[in-house]
């Protein structure tokens, strides 16, 4: 949805070493694609749950929180884990 920034983290910071010699997968999707994927994931999961749990689809508080969790909370969590 916007293209103001692209992932330009140094390789070491973008893919720190994990215990046992493993490393995080290096996904270098553009910011636009990554953001669209997050919104898409939020939408698909929200609809899938809402169809079976209708209270989920009725509350704007849940709707906003769900979107916030996916699009802002999830990337923030991943960034923190990668540090």
């Amino acid at each position: 949805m916007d293209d103001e920034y692209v992932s330009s983290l140094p390789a070491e910071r973008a893919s720190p070493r994990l215990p046992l010699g493993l490393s995080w997968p290096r996904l270098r999707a553009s910011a636009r694609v990554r953001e669209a994927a997050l919104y898409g994931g939020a939408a698909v999961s929200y609809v899938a749950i809402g169809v079976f749990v209708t209270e989920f689809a009725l509350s704007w508080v849940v709707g906003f929180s769900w979107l916030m969790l996916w699009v802002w909370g999830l990337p923030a969590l991943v960034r923190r884990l990668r540090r």
Partner: protein
Amino acid sequence: MSWVAHDLEPYVFQRKLGLGIAISFVALVLGSWGPDMATKWLVYGTNVVGFHLKASDPVRFHRGWPGAGFTHSLTFGVVVAGVVYLVSRSKPWAIGLLIGIWFHALSDTGDTVGSMLFFPWTHHFSLGAWAYTPQSGRITDAAAYYSGLGFVWDSIWVVAALACLPILRRSYFRERIAPRDGFWAWSGGLLPEDALLVLYRGAIFFGVCRFTTWMLWAHVLHHYPFDPTWGGPHWAHAVHLHE
């Protein structure tokens, strides 16, 4: 009664009117939701600390007088906007609330009960295009709305809102939304810009997803019959003005 139209109207108005006059987008959303936020939970009934609260006459409470039907009037929009302007001296907020409430009241004239647009004149303006059924409960109401012309009405708003995608860009938010409204400066002290952007896009996400959810629920999961005829669906008990 409209469902997701009230979530999506603010984006369409922001796109159409936002270039000409300064409008608070937050006020537009609150105005668009306001009349139902004040009434709907008592129309359907709700549980509060073990007590079930529900209006004894949901239709009159929601749209009539005596009741809270005045919230669905153009007059109410003028009063709310006037009070907010007197208190805050904020034209963007006053105009946003005015437009939001007005279009909520106007779009609710589409059902079989309609709204008292010029309260205290208690005449109901109603097109009668789709059945008013909240008295039947939340689930039946959803099934009926998305089986009659209500789903067509909401579809129009979904298409119109999706045509507004350019105003969801970060650059638009920075240039046109955030500078016009102190709410964003205040909330910017609590949350980063990424989170504010999610809030700004939240109502369109909620509206489009809710539309998809209810359509799937009503017609894929439960097979309620479509009846997009005037005043339908006729399998549901619609309240009319004379009842």
